[in-house]
């Protein structure tokens, strides 16, 4: 498993992909950070994170689109699947590699907070809570991306498919105030990654949301394993 993790990490940096991801991530997040805090004259970073959820919809598929689609297209998956390693560890290795890239870049982007201390008194506890929520949401999104990548041979299809699903997740509850039925609103709220995040913006570390994010991750990773196992029978 460690061998595949290492290979993936090297893959991000021996191809332009990793650099493109980091560059786009930092450019988008830098811009959003400036808009949400400095230009709005606030040291509250929760609005920035709220914006970033939408940024991730476009950025995360960059990390995951290749993971399995590429292996399948170039037939290298045959090497992995005939090697003495389990499908679960293969998928976990790829997931962890993508998450390492994501978390690493998120941590780098923490530099942004430093200037805030010069202009106001940022609430550090709340920012840390939001940051943890971001990592959890990242996990969720990456698992969705990995799942979609196992479904196709084409990296383009994988990235667009991932974006579509993530967009669905994120905006599920956005039209809620237009819906009369409480039942539907409740369900959409339940699904929405975005609504789950609200408590974090109020400085509450929401255990239920944490469990929700982790469960979504687990479900999609499990589905990826199943897809691979099923493919052997197809």
């Amino acid at each position, binding site marked *: 498993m460690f061998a595949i993790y290492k290979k993936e990490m090297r893959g991000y940096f021996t191809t332009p992909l990793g650099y493109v991801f980091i560059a786009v991530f930092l450019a988008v997040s830098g811009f959003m950070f400036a808009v949400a805090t400095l230009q709005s004259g606030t040291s509250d970073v929760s609005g920035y994170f709220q914006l970033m959820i939408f940024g991730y919809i476009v950025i995360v598929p960059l990390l995951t689109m290749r993971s399995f689609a590429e292996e399948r297209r170039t037939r*290298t998956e045959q*090497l*992995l699947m005939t090697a*003495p390693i389990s499908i679960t560890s293969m998928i976990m290795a790829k997931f962890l590699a993508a998450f390492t890239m994501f978390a690493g870049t998120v941590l780098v982007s923490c530099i942004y907070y430093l200037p805030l201390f010069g202009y106001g008194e940022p609430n550090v506890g709340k920012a840390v809570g939001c940051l943890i929520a971001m990592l959890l949401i990242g996990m969720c999104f990456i698992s969705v991306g990995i799942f979609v990548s196992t479904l196709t041979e084409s990296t383009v299809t994988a990235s667009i498919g991932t974006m579509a699903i993530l967009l669905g997740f994120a905006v599920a509850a956005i039209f809620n105030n237009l819906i009369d039925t409480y039942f539907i609103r409740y369900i959409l709220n339940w699904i929405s990654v975005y609504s789950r995040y609200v408590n974090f913006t109020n400085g509450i570390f929401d255990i239920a949301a944490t469990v929700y994010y982790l469960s979504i991750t687990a479900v999609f990773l499990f589905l990826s394993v199943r897809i691979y196992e099923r493919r052997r029978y197809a």
Partner: protein
Amino acid sequence: MTETSEEMSIRMIEINNLVKNYGTKFAVDDISFKVGKGEIVGFLGPNGAGKSTTMNILTGYLSSTSGEAKVGGIDILENPNEAKKLIGFLPEQPPLYIDMTVNEYLNFVYEIKGCKLNRERHIAEIRQVTKIEDVKNRLIKNLSKGYKQRVGIAQALVGNPPVIIFDEPTVGLDPKQIIEIRNLIRNLGQSHTVILSTHILSEVQSVCDRIIIINEGKIIADERTENITRVVEENRRYSLKICGPQREIQNLLQEIPGVISVELTGERELDSYTYIVEAEKGVDIRKPVFYVLSEKNYPMIGMEPLGMNLEEVFIKIMDMGR
């Protein structure tokens, strides 16, 4: 098949009643065979016969619909990780990470196979037997087809697995490389059990101890190579290229004792025509043909025995089985 030597009783590969179907299409239809230690077995069959499918099942890449596949006595479905450790596999398309150098790639394979050997020395040895030493630091994507194929073979040898499975190892190589790869396989056969697939008859004849012929998902012959070779050599057809008037020459050839038929191929160059001559079994017509023609002063500028194509071999072998 009767087992002759003691080695054969050690079963490295055992396939029993293997079936793989996609809906109503049977890719592999009730195949059974066993391969002993140290044997080189050739899988022969036209494209789409089920060779690759059988190999993919044996290596654990695909699952069978029913039946069992065992490697070194371990069932590939029940205990995949143990069974896979015993196999080195070169799929039809070599599974290469083109963004890695040859060395990086071999090291990666070494790691995912979980090998516990002297890494440096082992990989250097493999580079040497597959003759890829001089490209070890080059990116795989920049290598020629022949080198890529050899890196694919090198990959299968990593970890020194007792069973080696090659799916069409010589496809796309030039004649010199083909000979090198065949020599390599023959050498491997001394210490490994090797299965290779091909649709070229002469290839299995030159490297394999035993030939399994597959067509439409079924085994139609499982014979020692000598037996198959004998069948193939019964064939007495020659392609002759002779200068001179075609009608007269055709008649002359027809009159030679032992000649069954003379056909014109329609191929001509300047003043020569090409004839296909079929002779009776057990009669060598080559000398009489020469004398008859030289007497009439019609120079023969080419003679070559015609090989059988795979379909003809199939028919012959199926007849032989009856």
